[in-house]
């Protein structure tokens, strides 16, 4: 084996330009694959985390969306292991009107009424409030999304008019601004005290549902049935609520992997072309090696080794460069990339699984593409190989 490695290395380093091209193709392919997967995972993760920052992990509700004994149900749900908080919520569409310095703005909003005491836990507000307070100082307060505030020109202390479907209106003072990173929430959701919400909706002392936050959002499918059995309420997990989106993300990722694999195939093809040329150039050398007792298997191994060595060098360089590129993307803001996607920095998430998938896929493709020229070399007849000019 030592001799095979020796000859393989000598072939590779004896033909630097061709070897460089083969390695370069593997480097480019592995960078494209790794960086794309990491950005895709990062974007998916950011989107899901932004969504989960405000969305209940499990929503408990009844068939008429009117729960009267909500305090009792909320405390029952809170006692279930794995549940972080359970917040009674009144949810309704509404209209927000604001007469600001830039003019009169009217926009449709989603109104979320939550208890004054539970405001910080209900929507994770304590973490996502970017200005003002994450709690309601008075019954006449409202917390709005950053994008909505920007759109209408409102700021802390601004007074906005909220109109409910029951055609009731109230003037509320903006006491806080949140930023979830999820455009739909930041531009449409306003949060107000539950009692204020009940008044404006003329619903009485009821809520439309109970928002349940879990210690681990990915336990939702497991805990939702327990909530249902303990309270008799209907439940919907965040996964069920966003099934189409999650399915689209998963489909997009699968398609992306398939497309990126084509680039890997091209790199495998380049390696095969380089090896094919090498086999042609080395035909007489193969003849002499065979004359001196090399069997077909050893010739096959030499050329397989060459492909594998080129692939491994490409993967190592490609892996290192990918990590460097991902580091830059993660730590430095690139406005031309991020502005269009409502992001501050391009999110990257390189999982061990994704990294290994790139490595294994590249390796397998290189092996497959290396086999043909190596097999051709091993099948050369000694006498014909020696005659080769």
């Amino acid at each position, binding site marked *: 084996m030592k001799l095979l490695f020796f000859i393989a290395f000598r072939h590779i380093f004896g033909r630097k330009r061709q070897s460089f091209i083969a390695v370069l193709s593997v480097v480019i392919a592995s960078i494209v694959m790794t960086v794309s997967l990491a950005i895709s995972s990062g974007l998916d993760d950011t989107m899901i985390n932004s969504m989960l920052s405000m969305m209940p992990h499990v929503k408990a509700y009844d068939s008429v969306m009117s729960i009267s004994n909500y305090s009792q149900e909320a405390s029952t749900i809170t006692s279930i292991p794995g549940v972080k908080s359970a917040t009674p919520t009144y949810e309704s569409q509404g209209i927000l009107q604001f007469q600001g310095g830039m003019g009169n703005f009217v926009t449709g909003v989603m109104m979320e009424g939550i208890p004054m005491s539970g405001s910080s836990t209900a929507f994770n507000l304590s973490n996502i409030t970017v200005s003002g307070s994450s709690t309601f100082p008075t019954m006449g307060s409202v917390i709005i999304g950053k994008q909505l505030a920007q759109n209408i020109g409102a700021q802390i202390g601004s007074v906005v008019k909220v109109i409910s479907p029951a055609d009731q209106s109230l003037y509320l003072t903006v006491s806080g601004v949140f930023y979830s990173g999820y455009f739909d929430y930041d531009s449409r959701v306003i949060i107000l005290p539950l009692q204020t919400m009940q008044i404006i909706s003329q619903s009485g002392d009821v809520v439309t549902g109970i928002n349940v936050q879990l210690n681990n959002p990915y336990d939702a499918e497991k805990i939702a049935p327990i909530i249902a059995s303990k309270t008799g309420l209907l439940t919907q997990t965040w996964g069920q609520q966003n099934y189409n989106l999650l399915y689209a993300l998963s489909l997009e990722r699968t398609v992306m992997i398939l497309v990126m694999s084509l680039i890997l195939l091209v790199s495998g093809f380049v390696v095969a072309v380089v090896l094919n040329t090498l086999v042609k150039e080395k035909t007489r050398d193969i003849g002499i090696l065979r004359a001196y*007792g090399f069997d077909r298997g050893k010739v096959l191994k030499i050329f397989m080794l060459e492909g594998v060595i080129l692939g491994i060098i490409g993967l190592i360089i490609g892996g290192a460069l990918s990590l460097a590129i991902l580091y830059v993307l993660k730590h430095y803001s690139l406005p031309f990339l991020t502005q269009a996607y409502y992001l501050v920095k391009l999110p990257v998430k390189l999982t061990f699984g994704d990294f290994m998938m790139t490595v294994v896929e590249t390796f397998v493709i290189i092996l497959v593409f290396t086999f043909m020229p190596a097999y051709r070399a091993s099948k050369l007849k*000694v006498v014909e190989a020696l005659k080769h000019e």
Partner: protein
Amino acid sequence: MSNIIELKNISKGYGKGRNRVEILNGLDFELKQGEFASIIGKSGSGKTTLLNILGLLDEFDSGTFLFKGRKIESLKEKERNIFRNQEIGFIFQFHYLLKELSVFENILMPAFLKEGKISSQAKAYALELLEEIELMDRKEYKIENLSGGEKQRVAIARALINRPALILADEPTGNLDVETSEKIHTLFSNLVRKRNQSVLVVTHSGELASLTDIQYKVVNNKLTKS
């Protein structure tokens, strides 16, 4: 002296039907231990084909081939490879050295293959051969930096490194000028005689043939002593 090689009624041809061309037909040949023989003949007379059969590089159609008393046609491919590595040394018209390897590495290549490593004995023998071919100062040279004659001397040392039972040489100086050829002939002859080596050389050179014990000619697809 015992026979190293014994060919009986060997036939070899190419093509089928009307296109069939017989190269060797009912050929008999013997080579004894330490015998230095040459074959002379016209181009296309089958000299190289015979050499390829003797070197286990090519198959024959019929007949019997005994190498040190062993029937060659019964050997499997793996055994033939080992046989070639350990029992036969090749010298070709063109040096056929591996340009990626140095002079010393080229000489050691068959030994490396035989032992899976380079033993100290093999190294010592390679150095001895380098001394004999007068290329000790070129030991680490790349092949491309050697002259034609030097390359052929390296090829001769490579053929001898595994102390094979048989050396087969196909026009070993066919590619060199007269003066260099004569030097190589003398060197080659001295090297093989010193080792009591069995040698069969195919040549057009009367000068080289005159150095051998027996001269053969290929006439009508058969070998005859000249």
